[in-house]
């Protein structure tokens, strides 16, 4: 709902507004501690899942954020514990046969990092639970010429007896095209609770992006993910805080609430259920 409003307002203002780079005080960030940033999205798919660790950086630093190496990273829950291995700097992988299960709770534990620069390593922990999702019956793709976009439409029965939070991701020929935060489509079930989801526009593949342009014969896959409320809140707040804000519709900036426990730490540990459905694009049906 917020996104629709934002589009209307942005559309209205584009006619009169202009943008330009500006300089702010160079002392932004002075005396502010660097934070350990944790990015951990673990699904019910059996695969190598990755937990990424990096340091935050100052606004005026144009370099890539430094990776956190040498940490001891574990995921435990459902009666077992797995050790993640650092296969590239700052990227810690689960074993290839790992998956989380719906209805279970999991802990992320990170040790071996000195977060407060006192010379001793500190502990980071986080908890999330895996929520149910609506299994996709099928998915349909259409083309809207005036928008130069292909809406991807899921068909699924929304479970009506629980509060659900969804994330949609899209793949073309097996490659994820929604691989950045801003490309995730997030929604709650307020307006669809218990309904049969019959062709809602869940994702738009846009012709202006090379990796999203759909040719005849391409396979388009939609993934519906069931998130916990805290995971949904984190992602949607992170989208808002990193997105375009205006005095008309934006509240005061604020730190995104997250589920990391520890000093000087930021990020999210999100476990989610996942279902996929695919279709082959055969061109617009008349």
């Amino acid at each position: 709902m917020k996104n629709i409003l934002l589009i209307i307002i942005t559309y209205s203002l584009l006619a009169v507004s202009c943008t330009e780079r500006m300089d702010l005080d160079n002392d932004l960030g002075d005396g502010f501690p660097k934070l350990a940033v944790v990015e951990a999205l673990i699904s019910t798919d059996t695969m190598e899942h990755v937990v990424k660790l990096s340091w935050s950086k100052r606004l005026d630093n144009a370099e890539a954020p430094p990776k956190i190496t040498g940490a001891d990273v574990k995921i435990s829950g459902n009666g077992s514990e797995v050790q993640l291995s650092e296969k590239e700097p700052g990227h810690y992988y689960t074993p290839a046969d790992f998956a989380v299960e719906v209805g279970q709770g999991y802990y992320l534990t990170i040790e071996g990092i000195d977060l407060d620069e006192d010379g001793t390593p500190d502990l980071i922990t986080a908890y999330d639970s895996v929520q149910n999702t609506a299994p996709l019956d099928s998915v349909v793709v259409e083309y809207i010429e005036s928008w130069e976009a292909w809406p991807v439409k899921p068909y699924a029965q929304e479970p009506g007896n629980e509060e659900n939070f969804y994330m949609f991701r899209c793949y073309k020929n097996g490659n994820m095209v929604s691989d950045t935060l801003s490309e995730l489509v997030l929604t709650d079930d307020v307006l669809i609770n218990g309904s049969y989801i019959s062709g809602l526009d869940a994702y738009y593949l846009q012709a202006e992006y090379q990796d999203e342009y759909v040719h005849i014969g391409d396979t388009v896959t939609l993934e519906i993910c069931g998130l916990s409320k805290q995971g949904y809140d984190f992602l949607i707040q992170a989208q808002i805080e990193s997105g375009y804000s205006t005095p008309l519709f934006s509240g005061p900036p604020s730190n995104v609430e997250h589920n990391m426990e520890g000093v000087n730490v930021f990020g999210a540990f999100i476990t989610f259920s996942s279902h996929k459905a695919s279709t082959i694009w055969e061109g617009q049906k008349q």
Partner: protein
Amino acid sequence: MYRIIIFFSLIFAIQSVFADSEDTGERKPILSGYITDAENGEALIGATVYVKELGIGSVTNVYGFYSISLSPGKYTVKYTYIGFQPEEVEVTIKDKDVSKNIELLPVMQTIDEVVVTGEKDNANILRNEMSVEKLGSDDIRKIPALMGEVDVIKALQLLPGVQSPSEGSSGFSVRGGNLDQNLVLLDEANVYNASHLLGFFSVFNNDVVKDLTLYKGDIPARYGGRLSSVLDIYMREGNTKEFSGVGGLGIISSRLTLEGPLWKDKISFVAAGRRTYADLFLPLSKQEEVRNSTLYFYDLNLKINYRVNDNNRIFLSGYFGRDVFGSEFAKMGYGNGTATARWNHLFSKKLFSNLSLTYSNYYYSLGTPPGEANSFLWEAGLNDLALKYDFTYFATPDLTINYGIESMVHVFNPGHARGTGDNSAMGSIKVPTNRSIENGAYIGIEYDLSPLVSLKAGLRNATFANFGHETTYTYDLETNIIDSAEHGGGIYNHYMQWEPRMGLNVKLDEFTSVKASYARTTQFIQMARNSAAGTPLDVWFSASPNIKPQIGDQVAVGLFRNLFKNKLKASAEVYYKWMDNAIDFKDDAVLLLNKDLEGELRFGKATAYGAELMVKYQFEKINGWVSYTYSNTELEMEHLNEGKPYLAPYDKPHDVSVVFNYNVLDRLTIGATWVYSSGLPGTFPQGMADFMGTYIPIYSGRNEQRYPNYHRMDLALTWENKPKVSKRFNSRKFESSWNLSIYNVYNRHNTWAINFVQDENDPNQVYAEKTYLFGILPTVTYNFNF
């Protein structure tokens, strides 16, 4: 209710004391009547009546009525009003009351300004009121306008103590208050969203505005319901003498106002309409989505004034306006409607009354076109119905008593969203309707202790109650429901507050006075507005078992000094105000379609102080004002910003406005404004965190930084064409003018928003990007009247 009954029993008892003295024949005879504009019959508000021999006087009320008690004798009574030729009348008072209606002639340009400027134009010194700003529609018309749209609220933003929340916005913050802390009245009916086009224009058509008064403090006891200010706007009554019109053609809109007598000197009407027409050009666009878009607003004003006789007048007025946006993928509409019926009645020459019945409606909708799986419509709004009965008792020349009662029912519909059309996969969600009633009873006296000292005191009793079939909840800090209560109808929660008001005016001489005031105000309804400038989709909500009424106290002291025979009026005011139960929203609050909105609120206190300096000048060819405001406003909320104080969103320590009008030639006028203010508080990132290839900002405290300072100059040139006299239409004069307005003359790119953007080519580089709305913007408007 029983308190109100007791209160009014007391009031009528007091009144009967005075009434008894009338019956005994011991009282002084009364000189009373209405003062009107001789050209069109409009009542003149605040016109001065001065009895030369006694050195006493009075002023007309908002309906142009005056009353003054005099001992038998012969008097020279002088009637004056700014912009009108004064009139002296010899009046003989015997043992009977005298009714004297006066028509004042407007100043003609050919008459020497020195002659017509009222020498007793020192009402700002004499009146026991401060922290009050008054603007006439002529003052507003001279000010350069954004896109040529003369705007009442943009003019107010040039006054000391009044801040604009962002460039181009029609909201305003008074002495650090929130935008919802201003009571905006149009002919006594509440206007809940005074903006068109997302706030860039206000809903008030200046052609039908007769008079506006902004109370920034020292709010009279007859007003209640808001903490910071009252903006009281009256529509014109319509020409009772002859049919006339006024209008204009601009680049984005046109407007037309027609008025005239339906029964000469008895019944008059005024009808006005405006509409933008930028959307008429959209079909010419090469882009299909633009061709299929809709974007316009319109508004209509109508008023009928019936002078039944000298003791009875009836006014009916209304406003209706809508904004409509639409495109292939979304549509939005919003607007206000108000209706007012008023009856002025003189119970006696001393006792004036006004009975008002008002209705206000605000509606908005958001949706997508039907026929799709995503199709939905979201509607929300509110309705107010109010009854108000005000009395003014002119007891003696030194004592005036105001008292009255009002009751207002609020029905808020916070939102109903549902799928539309057979194909929609959307369900339905409705946030429960909220009902409440707000009552007020007041009494106020204005008493001249001596020729130099006058005192004002008032007391208002404000009550509020929630009623209806509702379920109320208790929340923890995470907005989780921890308790609930079912209410089966009737009143389930109420609040009561006494609001004392006081004022003192000490006249040091004819041109100098010192004033002081204190006012307590209470606010029972507020707006869920989690944005700086606000949108049409803001949600109003009321006090409840969880939400205590906001209470404000303000003290102010001022020095007022007129120079050059009242042609230059200087004032300096300092104020301090403190507010309890102030409301703000938790970080990332969800305000829309949220039935648990109350759980998103945080409560605390707010303090504001400041100094306002103003010099207003009115010379033969030059007029305008210069104002400077220093202010500070801080909020302190439990569980927000770690409990530490933070700057209010509209805190601007320094604010300067310069307004200048110069009659270069008889037919050429130049107007200019220059504004300067400190940048608004902002929250900028202290660090950036990389998450899924996107940098998320990390902040320290709220509002610890500031946007760049703001300044801008606007110019206006108005060329009056030679009047044309129509032989066909009874020698009617047709006057016209061209107005060239240049907004932002030196093309400064003032910051409207700051975003932190990842460079597309180098995603690790994040830079600050400012959005500015308007560069230099010239517009031409053709205005006419006949």
